[in-house]
């Protein structure tokens, strides 16, 4: 991913590696102790920054909306939402797909980029994984409350019961249960396994007795033994290798929820790849939304450098391109299929009563990002990337809105056409999940190591073992 043209004179900016002309992944001058102190200090300090309390309270306040919304929902039922016939799927499924898509970037960074030996991922993988888990928590809420009687949601799982009733495994909705529950479980396990050595560091550096005990238990007694490290590295690699097909399959299965139905606009074979690309696209946008304020607030510019932001913007450019191809193919197929229904669906999507949503989607997901991200100046412009990440997340929400709503509200039979209008309760629950996400994320940055210390140590030049004139080691690529 290295471009050779430096943005400015390398002599002027210490962050630019003079050999490659590229921004360094880690600022020069760091050693094992300094990175450990910097990252562990954020967690172990007794001086919690006031801004943290402010953010936590904002998150908690917004999450109260979720609590209120869910309480009213459980009292009254899903009738308080805008869902109706024919628009039987509304915000719940849109938000579910949106949130779970956001989670995908975390797994991509922690698994796929690990397999591809992209060491720049090390600084951002922990909080990207945290983002995945919190996004899956928010996503998982929606199918549970959408079933109408959430206290019976466990019926989704196959378990022996006195009714002798079992799930129907030919249904994509049953596949969803397996895909999403596996995804949540493996993400949590991968995240926790990744943190074990860092918990050991926190245990050894903590001064408060409670912190010592808590991190000591979480570390499972990690002592950095070489035999342990070797098994640990194997397990991490295996988890990465397993998460890669998992993350690709999760959004594929979610796209089956649509693609297996025989509705115009849903029944297409392009859905799986285009859903996965869209998921990664929105996920990287969310990583940028989170990483940019965090690196500013905690002064982490030397560990999360412009190189990371640049690389993430490049991934967005690539996946955004796939998404654009997906949109183009949908339009092409609606003509090429020679199906009257497909053609009408696309016309209705573009120029019908909700056409504005389609053009909004094209503007925010394609027009703005895919024209500007080619410029390196903009890719390393932190403020621009932050605004862009918000734009893309809006765009990806509109994508799901367009797919879900425009295919449903005007289907085959004009006499059954209707419309869809979200209610106050739809909005308050959706916005409430954003509060929940923010709340969980603030707890995470305060109590857990948000950058993997052991992996950052491995990127330092001091790791090189001098074997007396033996061949150069693979450390080279990490510098």
């Amino acid at each position, binding site marked *: 991913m290295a471009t050779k043209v430096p943005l400015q004179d390398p002599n002027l900016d210490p962050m630019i590696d003079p050999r490659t002309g590229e921004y360094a992944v880690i600022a020069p001058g760091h*050693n*094992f*102790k300094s990175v*450990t102190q910097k990252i562990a200090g954020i967690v172990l300090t007794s001086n919690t920054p006031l801004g943290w309390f402010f953010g936590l309270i904002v998150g908690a306040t917004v999450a109260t909306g979720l609590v209120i919304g869910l309480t009213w929902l459980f009292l009254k039922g899903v009738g308080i939402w805008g869902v109706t016939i024919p628009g039987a799927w509304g915000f719940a499924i849109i938000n579910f797909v949106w949130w779970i898509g956001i989670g995908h970037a975390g797994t991509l960074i922690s698994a796929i980029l690990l397999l591809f030996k992209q060491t720049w991922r090390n600084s951002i993988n922990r909080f990207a994984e945290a983002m995945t888990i919190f996004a899956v928590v928010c996503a998982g809420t929606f199918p549970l409350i959408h079933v109408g009687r959430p206290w019976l949601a466990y019926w989704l799982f*196959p378990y022996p019961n006195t009714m*002798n009733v*079992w799930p*129907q*495994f*030919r249904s994509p909705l049953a*596949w969803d249960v*397996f*895909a999403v*529950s*596996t995804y949540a*479980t*493996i993400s949590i*396990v*991968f995240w926790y*396994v990744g943190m074990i*050595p860092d918990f050991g*560091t926190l*245990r*050894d550096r903590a001064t408060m007795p409670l912190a010592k005990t808590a991190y*000591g*238990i979480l570390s*499972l*007694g*990690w*002592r*950095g*033994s*070489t*035999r*342990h*490290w*070797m*098994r*640990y*590295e*194997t*397990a991490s690699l*295996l*988890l990465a290798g*397993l*998460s890669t*097909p*998992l993350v690709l*399959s999760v959004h594929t*299965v979610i796209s*089956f929820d649509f693609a297996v139905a025989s509705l115009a606009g849903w029944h297409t074979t392009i859905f799986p790849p285009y859903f996965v690309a869209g998921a990664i696209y929105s996920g990287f946008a969310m990583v940028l939304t989170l990483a940019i304020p965090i690196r500013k607030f905690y002064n982490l510019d030397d560990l999360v450098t412009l190189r990371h932001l640049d690389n993430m913007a490049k991934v967005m450019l690539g996946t955004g391109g796939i998404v654009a191809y997906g949109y183009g193919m949908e339009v092409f197929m609606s003509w090429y299929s020679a199906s009257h229904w497909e053609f009408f669906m696309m016309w209705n999507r573009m120029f019908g009563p909700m056409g504005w949503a389609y053009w909004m989607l094209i503007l925010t997901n394609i027009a703005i990002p895919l024209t500007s991200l080619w410029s390196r100046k903009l890719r390393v412009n932190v403020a621009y990337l932050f605004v862009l990440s918000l734009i893309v997340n809006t765009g990806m929400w509109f994508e799901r809105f367009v797919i879900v709503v425009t295919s449903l509200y005007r289907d085959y039979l004009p006499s059954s056409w209707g419309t869809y209008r979200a209610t106050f309760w739809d909005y308050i629950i959706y916005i409430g999940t954003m509060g929940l996400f923010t709340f969980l994320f603030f707890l995470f940055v305060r109590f857990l190591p948000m950058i993997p210390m*052991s*992996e950052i*140590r*491995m990127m330092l030049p*001091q*790791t*090189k*073992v001098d*074997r007396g004139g033996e061949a150069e080691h693979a450390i080279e690529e990490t510098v």
Partner: protein
Amino acid sequence: MPPREGIYGLLAEFNTPTELVQATEAARAAGYRRMECYTPYPVEEAAEALNVHTNRVPLVCLLGGLMGLTTAYLMETWVNVWSYPLNIAGRPLFSWPAFIIPAYEWTILFAGLSAAFGMMALNGLPQLYHPVFNAPNFRNGATTDKFFLCLEAADPKFSLTDTRAFLEQFPAVSVVEVDH
């Protein structure tokens, strides 16, 4: 079981991974076998010096994956063909292509859990107590920036005086006795 009394071993502390690897290689060449390195991040050269090349985590993971695959597939078949057969739009009861998807997910689920918990089990974790934690300098460095080599007393070649003299010929920051 190693003896629970007396000392567990001698722990040498190094500043760089290179010094650790050289000392470990020399200790192995000198005939020591019961020893372990402790490092703040995985040092592959140390594993080579200890003659540790393979581990059984991949096998555990494979077995877990196969178990997940067969469990899910057999369960789906039993449920939808025998226990609770439903006619869904005339599709065959044994809809094997549709059954692949949950089976695929459970393959990954079981394999992933086996890899993670298998790694912990093979490592003997959780194990909150270990003698090396008794060394006064261990916790300050082993998880931050220091590299340790522990020659264990259970080794037949171990002798408090000779082994200490052996370790002190390397540029170790310190060589300390580790109690049980």
